């Protein structure tokens, strides 16, 4: 069904992006075809090849992206977009070969509009590169996913990501004002840069979370904020998860929007507080408030009142500050666990308040049923609900192939989530790992996603097989 990447296609690619920006070397193809999904890391550990593209290109502009897509569409060659390669769902794996397009050369800040608090950037800029630029000018985007040092603006948008300050600043879909997107057939479209409009469905949001299957995001206009005058950290201990969740729910009801809200379950609290040498019982809640000084002080006061009402014990700023400063340190364990052939992964799900606790218990039980040791925190909240982030480790079972065990764990968690009526992903996205559950997640409306894909990408060349467009057996053949 797909055309192969023939020498004349390579020549054409070279004439589009320049000879030095095209490579067919195995080194480039392997490195550019890999994200940080567990099975990919596991293949790395074992020295096994993973699926690779046939050619890598490094376009320097939306116009070049457009020419590459026109060529690929004409010759029926798959194209996958590579941002920071820090996705955790297998989303960029070129399972059907073709072209991988690394867009990090597109990294300019195009405009800073200080009156309308808008920054316009190219999609290949790494998150922290933009944040640093804004900080120097006295602003912040407020988007701090833990992958901010590695992932790109385009990747954040493509995966509908959420940062750790999301409770105040919103998720990436709240920050985006306009997009420039190259469609699979090569047309370049731009949405209008206005704060809001009522001119039909919001087409821009169609591409947010489309994981590179509907178009390549090349530029974005984003809302920014004045750099906060003040930032306060504080922490509380609750006797159990229920009390902590009630406190958070009521903080939101009172109209307070902390930036960081992280409520840890008992196991996560033990590890987090234990590492600080603090008594490790109950459930830890970390809060931060930032912005205009007077408002921040008032917010902290109201939140304190609510936390005390729910039996929260003030632990001061240490646990919160410590977490903020060391929030990336948890990752240093991962290579060692992987080297011990452990399964290590995360699953984040969401639900309304009335089902949030049930979701927690059901997914936890499902994971434990697979011999997994899970821990969890709740870190993105809304008036109507929140998200749960499970981290789990499963020791090696000599007789079970690791990938079989891996898929059984995912299966159990996803099915539990669907049973409770939660969503199977809050912010990591679908990629390959959640593809098998997309129909169950969306029900009949999944047909609309399928139809959109057909209309926009009639030859199915853009990141084929992702976001639920792949059968379980095809995924399992490779991973």
């Amino acid at each position, binding site marked *: 069904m797909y055309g192969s990447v023939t020498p004349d296609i390579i020549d054409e690619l070279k004439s589009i992006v320049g000879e030095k920006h095209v490579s067919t070397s195995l080194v480039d193809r392997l490195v550019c075809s890999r994200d*940080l999904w567990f099975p990919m890391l596991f293949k790395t550990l074992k020295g096994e090849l993973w699926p690779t593209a046939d050619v890598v290109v490094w376009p320097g502009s939306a116009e070049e992206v457009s020419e590459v897509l026109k060529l690929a569409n004409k010759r029926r060659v798959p194209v996958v977009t590579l941002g920071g390669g820090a996705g955790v769902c297998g989303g960029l794996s070129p399972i059907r070969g073709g072209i991988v397009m690394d867009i*990090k050369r597109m990294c300019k800040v195009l405009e800073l509009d200080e009156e309308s608090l808008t920054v316009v950037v190219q999609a290949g800029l790494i998150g922290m*590169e933009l944040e640093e630029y804004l900080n120097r000018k006295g602003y912040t985007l407020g988007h701090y996913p833990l*992958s901010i*040092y590695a992932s790109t603006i385009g990747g954040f948008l493509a995966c509908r990501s959420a940062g750790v300050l999301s409770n105040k600043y919103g998720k990436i879909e709240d920050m985006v004002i306009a997009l420039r997107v190259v469609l699979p057939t090569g047309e370049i479209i731009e949405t209008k840069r206005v704060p809001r409009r009522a001119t039909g469905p919001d087409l821009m949001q169609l591409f947010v979370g489309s994981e590179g299957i509907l178009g390549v995001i090349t530029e974005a206009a984003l809302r920014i904020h004045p750099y906060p005058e003040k930032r306060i950290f504080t922490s509380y201990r609750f006797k159990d998860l229920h009390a902590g969740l009630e406190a958070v729910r009521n903080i939101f009801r009172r109209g307070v929007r902390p930036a960081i809200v992280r409520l840890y379950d008992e196991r996560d609290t033990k590890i987090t507080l234990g590492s600080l040498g603090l008594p490790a019982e109950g459930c830890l809640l970390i809060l931060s408030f930032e912005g205009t000084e007077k408002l921040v002080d008032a917010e902290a006061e109201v939140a304190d009142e609510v936390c005390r009402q729910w039996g929260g014990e003030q632990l001061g700023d240490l646990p919160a500050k410590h977490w903020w400063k060391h929030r990336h340190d948890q990752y240093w364990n991962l290579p060692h666990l992987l080297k011990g052939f452990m399964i290590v992964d995360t699953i984040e799900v969401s639900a309304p308040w009335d089902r949030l606790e049930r979701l927690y218990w059901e997914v936890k039980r499902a994971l434990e049923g697979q011999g997994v040791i899970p821990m969890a925190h709740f870190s993105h909240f809304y008036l109507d609900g929140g998200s749960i982030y499970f981290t789990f480790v499963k020791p090696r079972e000599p007789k079970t192939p690791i990938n079989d065990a891996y898929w059984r764990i995912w299966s159990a968690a996803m099915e539990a989530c669907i049973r409770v009526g939660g969503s199977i992903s809050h912010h990591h996205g679908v990629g390959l790992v959640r593809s098998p559950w997309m129909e169950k997640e969306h029900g009949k409306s999944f047909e609309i996603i399928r139809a959109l894909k057909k209309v926009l990408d009639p030859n199915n060349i853009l990141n084929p097989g992702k976001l639920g467009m792949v059968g379980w057996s095809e995924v399992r053949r490779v991973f």
Partner: protein
Amino acid sequence: MRLEEFSSRILTCSLCLKMCKYVCPVASVVRYEPVYPPNKALIAHMILSGMINLKDEGENVARYAYLCTTCGLCSTPPWCGLDVRLWEIIEALRADLVDQGIILEPVKRVLKSASENRNPYGENLHARFSKVKHVFSDDADVVYFVGCTTSYRVPQIANAVIDVLSMAGLNFTLLKDEWCCGSPLIRLGLIDLAREHAEHNINALNDIGAKTVVFSCPGCYRTFKIDYERLGYKIKFEVKHVTEVVVDLLKSLKIRKKEDITATYHDPCHLGRHLGIFDAPRQILSVLGIQIREMQWRRENSRCCGAGGGMLITNSEVAYAAGRRRVEEALESGVKNLITACPFCRISLERASGGKIEVKDVMELLAESLEER
């Protein structure tokens, strides 16, 4: 393969989550995925695990192996908490490439030049000190080791050092038959040749009874202090950077303070991150009356000028682009003077400055401010 010695660290880095990605001064200007630090380790892992072989992919591997200034920023906390020390892996990879006969053209030129003229620049060995003040003494046990880059490219640093040490009344000498310390050779993977140089220099210094050897080039200093031992040589003399020596001599110098100068100080990677010397150059600047406005990326987190690790030789344009970025950062701190303590940084930053900021070595500033005793 030399890489095997590092296999565990290579695998660790290949399995990590890329938190060091955005700090790399080279990748942030080249912007190809394989240039980012953890992917260079991944390439090494792919070689060791047989996923790729150097026979087929050698040239492609070399392309990335030499896109690194070995600055070490990616391997510094908080960007790395796993003690990966990527620069050692990169150097081993380059040496393996050379061992297998995969030698880039610019590396071949250095090989030829250093074999024939004992410097990497194709300059005449006998003209080494032609632009440097001749200070030769038979009874001095302190030796100022000038280095190739300073001798041939920025002799004004050498002359400044010589003026300062002389005015401080120090009895010192240059080493008549000084050869390249071997730093560019080690960085580029030319280990056998580096050994010849190490042996020559150590013997020559022992022959004249050196007790202390002073360096103004952090590259030479690092090579004597760390690399010679790693190559298996023991040195009997003490090694010091000139700023460390001068800090102790400040009292014996008559200094005319500079008025109203604000400057920023760029920590050279080899001097700072690799050898821990951050304060001595700053102390000299403050004694000179210079107000320092620090850049965001400083001390352990200093961002490379782009010239390290042989990049000026193998990827000059990329080095230049990285230098421009560093200059922009200096300009953002709102100063007109960018001071450093390394001939490579000075060359790279001056070239990138486009005349917008004055670049000098701390020793030049000090020499300018000395009053005759």
